[in-house]
């Protein structure tokens, strides 16, 4: 596959959205939705949040005005893109009762064609992690796979980092190197322009159709330099390559106990995490009990019921649940899937009502080994 690099002006960005729509994609881009930037259907470039920045810090998320008028100037969107692929509620099966027996109805609706437009590198990495878990392990989740195959990823590299970002240390951003169909880099030099690079055959075909002029090496360098500047802004980090050993050494560290007292076990971090994939199942039936459905719902390892087995829950204390979550993200994920489960988006820090900071928690386990 030959990588296409095009230079888009503001009008061409609008044409790109139009082109995606003409290919049948529902385009979901960053939109100012109440007090947050979230993915929502857009029809033109004017739906995008020009001049809106987001400001996040532990336990805090606010929108702010950006005088530069950038569309992709804010850090990560308020929530990750996972809800489009690994939907919060999915019907696994439905069944109809027939004379004491029952029949499974094969009525799963077809997956919609969706373009995720302007998602950040951390989310691109999050989707790749999710692909590994739900599509590339021993089994593949057919519903996830169907949605994934119908999804086009038009990412936007970050040119500004939020205070909670630490993707640079996780090797996932602020510039995406893979996992997208097209990646945009917004360039500001008096006016807004875009470097559009393809990352798949599908992406290359769309760029070819757009007929925008090719990007010169100088333009590419100028765009990438902005991403490097965003990386330099980051103050948080996790030494993820050491994380597995560090965590396994400190199963009984007193820090878990302390953090367990601060943690409310609300599960916000798991909902806001682009890689948290855990689900529960629920049974529903019609009032006359003739029809029953099994549903899959997002779940959180912070609930007491999560680890319930006959006799009681394995993890009764909040301390043990926080430890499970952090160890899974940074340590056990590496055993399970050969990569780290954290992409450095910082949302767990932003959305924690107690302001618990994963980078700080990890560093506290072995202060000398992490700086």
């Amino acid at each position, binding site marked *: 596959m030959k990588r296409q690099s095009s230079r888009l002006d503001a009008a061409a960005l609008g044409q790109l959205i139009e082109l995606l729509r003409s290919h049948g994609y529902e385009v979901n881009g960053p939109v100012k939705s109440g007090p947050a930037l979230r993915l929502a259907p857009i029809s033109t470039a004017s739906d995008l949040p020009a001049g809106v920045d987001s400001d996040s810090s532990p336990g805090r998320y606010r929108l702010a005005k950006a005088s530069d008028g950038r569309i992709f100037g804010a850090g990560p969107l308020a929530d990750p893109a996972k809800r489009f692929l690994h939907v919060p509620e999915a019907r696994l099966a439905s069944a109809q009762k027939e004379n004491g027996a029952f029949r499974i109805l094969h009525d799963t609706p077809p997956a919609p064609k969706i373009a995720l437009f302007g998602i950040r590198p951390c989310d691109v990495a999050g989707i790749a992690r999710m692909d590994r878990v739900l599509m590339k392990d021993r089994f593949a989740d057919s519903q996830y796979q169907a949605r994934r195959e119908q999804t086009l990823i038009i990412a936007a590299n970050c040119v500004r980092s939020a205070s909670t970002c630490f993707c640079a240390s996780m090797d996932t951003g602020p510039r995406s190197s893979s996992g997208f169909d097209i990646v945009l880099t917004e360039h500001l030099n008096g006016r807004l322009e875009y470097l559009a690079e393809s990352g798949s055959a599908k992406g290359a075909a769309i760029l070819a159709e757009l007929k925008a002029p090719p990007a010169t090496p100088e333009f590419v360098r100028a765009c990438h330099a902005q991403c490097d500047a965003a990386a330099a802004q980051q103050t948080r980090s996790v030494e993820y390559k050491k994380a597995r050993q560090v965590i396994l050494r400190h199963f009984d560290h007193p820090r878990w106990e302390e953090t367990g007292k601060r943690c409310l076990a609300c599960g916000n971090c798991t909902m806001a995490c682009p890689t948290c*994939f855990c689900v529960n199942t629920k049974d529903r039936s019609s009032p006359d009990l003739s029809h029953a459905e099994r549903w899959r719902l997002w779940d959180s390892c912070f609930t007491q019921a999560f680890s319930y087995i006959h006799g009681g829950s394995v993890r009764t204390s909040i301390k043990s649940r926080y430890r499970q979550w952090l160890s899974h993200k940074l340590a056990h994920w590496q055993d399970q899937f050969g990569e780290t489960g954290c992409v450095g988006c910082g949302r767990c820090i932003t959305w924690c009502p107690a302001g618990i900071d994963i980078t700080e928690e990890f560093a506290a386990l072995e202060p000398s080994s992490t700086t």
Partner: protein
Amino acid sequence: MTSTDPAAAIVAPPGVMEPVPARVLSVDKETHDTFTLRLEQPPAMTGFRPGQFSMLYVFGVGELPISISGDPEHPGDLTYTVRSVGPVTYQLVTRHEGESIGVRGPFGTSWPMAECRGKNVLIIAGGIGLAPLRPAIYHILRHRGDFNRLVILYGARSPRDVLYKKELAAWNLLPDTQVLTTVDYGGVTWRGYVGVVTTLFKYLRLLPSETATILCGPEIMMRYAIHDLSARGFQDDQIWLSMERNMRCAVGFCGHCQLGPHFACKDGPVFNYPDIKPYVDLYEL
């Protein structure tokens, strides 16, 4: 360890999360709270290996992982021994012949029958833990010449909780086969042993170096049993155990059954002891 080659991923058939209805052939009472359920094996379903489990679904009520307790070489039916302790298990054991139960699976790892070949096999079971071990016993008895001495140590709460009483008695009469059953508390009519299952170890006359041990029961029981086995010279890598964790999906998607780096559903439920040794003694892991 647990990561698999992505290229080897099986694209699960669309139905991997969809239960397949199976007709109930019989429900037999084993004890006051435990029943054996025999289902007609749905045509699309493959056979199973000893130690594997299925997800059993009661229409509109829920789904649970249940170990297969039947003979792996008896085609046509799927057998499960279920203890009625909650809403789903209660519904499972109160089904009638002709009704249907949803089945997914079989899932998970199996008892290491190949590694047991040519050795003595020590089977340690506690409570309902005897059920997932029964297919291994059937396998050994069907291929008796492949294995040396078979010793089954079984602990139950009280005489009325002892499963498969007739079979246990029959197995004990077979050559090179010994079954010792013990209960935590017995009445005057109980002629067997009284005491936890580890108290039977002193009657073992097996050379540790020539013995493979497979065990299933409450986690505490298995932990103490393994400590005692180690003290008697049994090697960790010759011990396999079946772990219970909350399982919602059975294929590694739901995340509930994690045990450190392992998913009990797909990396287990049967583990070679050295693989989980670092994790089994950690409180609230």
